[in-house]
C-alpha cells in the first residue's frame, strides 16, 4: 500500500516514527560531526563558546605534520604502522593455526585447551599487561628500541586465545572436503594448505585486518609501556596526551584532526569486514 493511501492516523504514526529515528541518529552522530567540525575550527583552545565554529581553517591538520615541538605525529604514525604490521603477521599466524587445529583436528587435549583459553580470558587482560611491563622494566627494556619489541610481544604474544571467530569460520567448511582429500592420499598438512586455506581467504584477511587495526585502537597498553618515552608513542597514546592539561589549549583542535585522520582508515576497514564480525557474533552457537 502506498503511503499516500494510508489512513490519516497511520500517516501520523509512520511520520512520527521516522522523526524519532532521525532524532536518535542525530544523537548518535553528534560527536562525530562535532569532532569533524572541531578539526577545522579556526579559533584555538579546548573550549569554544559556540557549538558550531565561527571560522574554518586547515591549520590544525598542518600543525600535526609540521609542528614537532611537543608531538611528532608522523613519527607516531610510523611507530604504529611498524608495530601493527609485525604484530598482525604474528598474531594472524597464531590465530589461524590455533583455530584450524581446534576446529578441524581431533586430539586428546583439545577440550582442555579450549577450557584453558576460556579461563585465561576471565583474568583481566590488563593484569598480565602490568606484569609484562614490570618484567620488561626489570630487564631495562622500557626505554630504547626494545620498547617496540615489548609492544609487539604483548600485542601478538598471547593472540592465540582469540581464536573464536576464525574457528567459527572453519567450523562451517564441510568436513567431507577433508575426508575426500585424505582418501586421495593427502596428509593433513596438505589438506590444510591446499584445500582448506584457499577456501579460507576471507577469514585470513579478516584476521589480518582486525589485528592490524589493533595497535591503532589500543591505547592502554601502549600508554603503560611507552610511559614518558615520546619517541615511541603510538598514535593513540599521542592523541591521549594531547588532551593533557599542559597541552590541551594548544593541541585540542589538532587532536580532533588526528582523530579524524586515524578514524577514516579504521572505519573503512571496519565497514569492509563487519560481515564476518556479524556472522561470528550472531551465529554464536558454534
Amino acid at each position: 500500500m502506498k503511503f499516500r493511501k494510508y489512513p490519516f492516523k497511520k500517516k501520523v504514526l509512520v511520520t512520527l516514527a521516522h522523526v524519532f529515528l532521525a532524532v536518535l541518529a542525530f544523537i548518535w552522530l553528534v560527536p562525530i560531526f562535532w569532532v569533524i567540525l572541531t578539526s577545522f575550527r579556526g579559533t584555538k583552545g579546548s573550549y569554544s563558546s559556540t557549538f558550531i565554529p565561527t571560522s574554518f581553517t586547515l591549520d590544525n591538520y598542518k600543525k600535526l605534520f609540521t609542528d614537532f615541538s611537543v608531538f611528532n605525529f608522523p613519527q607516531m604514525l610510523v611507530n604504529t604502522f611498524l608495530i601493527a604490521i609485525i604484530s598482525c603477521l604474528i598474531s594472524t599466524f597464531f590465530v589461524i593455526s590455533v583455530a584450524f587445529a581446534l576446529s578441524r583436528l581431533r586430539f586428546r587435549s583439545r577440550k582442555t585447551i579450549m577450557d584453558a583459553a576460556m579461563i585465561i580470558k576471565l583474568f583481566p587482560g590488563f593484569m598480565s599487561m602490568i606484569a609484562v611491563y614490570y618484567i620488561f622494566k626489570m630487564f631495562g627494556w622500557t626505554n630504547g628500541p626494545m620498547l617496540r619489541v615489548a609492544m609487539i610481544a604483548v600485542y601478538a604474544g598471547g593472540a592465540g586465545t582469540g581464536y573464536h571467530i576464525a574457528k567459527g569460520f572453519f567450523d562451517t567448511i564441510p568436513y567431507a572436503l577433508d575426508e575426500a582429500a585424505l582418501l586421495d592420499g593427502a596428509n593433513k598438512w596438505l589438506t590444510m594448505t591446499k584445500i582448506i586455506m584457499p577456501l579460507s581467504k576471507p577469514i585470513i584477511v579478516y584476521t589480518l585486518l582486525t589485528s592490524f587495526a589493533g595497535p591503532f585502537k589500543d591505547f592502554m597498553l601502549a600508554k603503560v609501556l611507552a610511559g614518558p618515552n615520546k619517541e615511541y608513542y603510538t598514535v593513540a597514546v599521542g592523541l591521549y596526551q594531547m588532551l593533557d592539561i599542559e597541552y590541551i589549549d594548544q593541541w585540542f583542535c589538532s587532536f580532533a584532526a588526528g582523530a579524524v585522520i586515524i578514524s577514516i582508515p579504521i572505519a573503512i576497514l571496519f565497514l569492509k569486514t563487519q560481515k564476518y564480525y556479524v556472522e561470528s557474533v550472531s551465529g554464536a552457537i558454534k
Partner: protein
Amino acid sequence: MKARKEAFQTEYSFSRAIKEGSAVVKLSAVILGLGCLVRKQLVKGFMLLFTEILIIAFMLREGIFNLKKLITLGEVEQQKVWNEAKSIYEYVEGDRSLIILLYGIITLAIVLCTLILVRISVMNAFRAEKCVKNGKKPPSFYEEVRELFDKNLHKTLLFLPIAGVLIFTVLPLIFMMSMAFTNYSVENSKLVLFDWVGLRNFKNMISFGGSLGKTFWSVLGWTLVWAVAATFSNYILGILLAMFINWKEIRWQKFWRFCFVLTVAIPHFVSLLIIRQMLQPEGAVNILLRNIGFLGAKESLPFFTDVTWARVSVILINIWVGVPYTLLQVTGILQNIPGELYDAAKVDGAGPFMTFRKITLPYMLFVTMPSLITTFTGNVNNFNVIFLTSRGFPRAVESTAGKTDLLITWLYKLTIENQYFDIGAVIGIMTFVTLSIASLISFRLSGSYKNEEGFR
C-alpha cells in the same frame, strides 16, 4: 567427558610405561633420551639428553640458588658503607625481591618443563620398546617429523601459539598473582625488599571493618551494578532499535542502520575522549544547552562531578557505545525468527508487549546467550569507558577509588599510579573470581555451550 577419554585412549600411558616398561624405560626418567638412544633413535635421544644437560647446568649454577631465595624473597638490605679512601658513602646493592620473585617463578616453570620432558622421554622409550617387541622397527626421526605434518599436525600448529600464551600471558599472570601474597607496596616502603605475608591481603580486602574492605565492597557493588546495567541496557535497547528499524513501514532502513554502525567503526578511545570533552562543565553539550536557553549563562550540568550524575552518565555513554554493536549483531537473527510464531500470537490476541516478552526475547536469549556472557565479562573489565570518560571520579578524599571506579580501573590506579602492587594483585584475583562465578552460573543456565559439537 568419559566418552571423549575413551575415544582417545591409547595403549601408551605414563603409568603403564612405568609399570610395564623394562629397566631402560624406567631409567629414561633419570637419563632423558636413554630409551631412544638404545633403540637407535639417535637424533631424538641426543636432543633430549642435551636438553637435560643444559637444564642440570642451569639448575646447579643458578636454579637452586633462585629457588632458595624464593622462600625468603631476599633479606639483605641496601647498605650505606663509609669508604675511607674516597671519603664518601657508597651504596652496596641489597637483594631486590621483585627480581628474586621473577627468577624464582621462571625457575619453577623450568622445573615444570623438566617434568614434561621426563614424561616425553619415558613414553618414547616405552613406545619404542613396544615396537621392538611386536617385531617392528621403532619410527625413525624422519618418520616422526613427517608425522608432525599428518597425525600430529595439531602439535606443530599449536606449539608456537601456546608457547606465546604461556610466556606472555600465563607467566606474567602468575607473577602478578604471586604479588597478592606479599607486602610489595609503597606502604611501609616495601618497594625493594618485601616478604611473603600469606593471605593477609585477602583478609584485609574482604573484611568489612577496615577502610580497604569498605572501599572494596563498594567498588565491587558498583562494578556488578554497572556490568548488569551496561549489559542489559545495551541488549534490550539494541533489540528494540533493531526491531524498530526492521518495521516494514520504515523507509531507508539501510541508511538508518549505517548511521548507527558508523559509530562502531570509529576507534573507541577517540569517541570516548570526544564525549568526555563534550560533557565537561565548559564542553560542547553545556554550551549547546546554554545557547538554546535551557541553562543560564554560567550554569552547567554536573556530568562527571556529581555521584548519581556520573554513574548515570557512564551508563548512558556505554549505551551510546554499545547499542550499535547489538544492532549489528541482532538484525540478522531477528529476521530469522519464524513468522508463524507471531501470527499465532496475534490470533491468540497477544499485544506487542506480550509478543516481545514471550517470543522475541526468549528466542534472542537462546541464540545470543554465549555472546551475552562475553559482553558481561567485557563490561566487568570495561576499562576504556570508565577511564576515558569519568576517570573514576567523583572521588572522596580519603579513598583511593572514585565513585565510578570499577575493579579494573581501581587496579590501574593502585598499581600504575600509586604502587600498591599487593592490593592490586588481590583485586585482579577477586575480579577473576567474580567473573568465574558469574560465567559458571550463566553457562549452567544456558546449556548451549555443551552443544558445541552438535551440528557436526
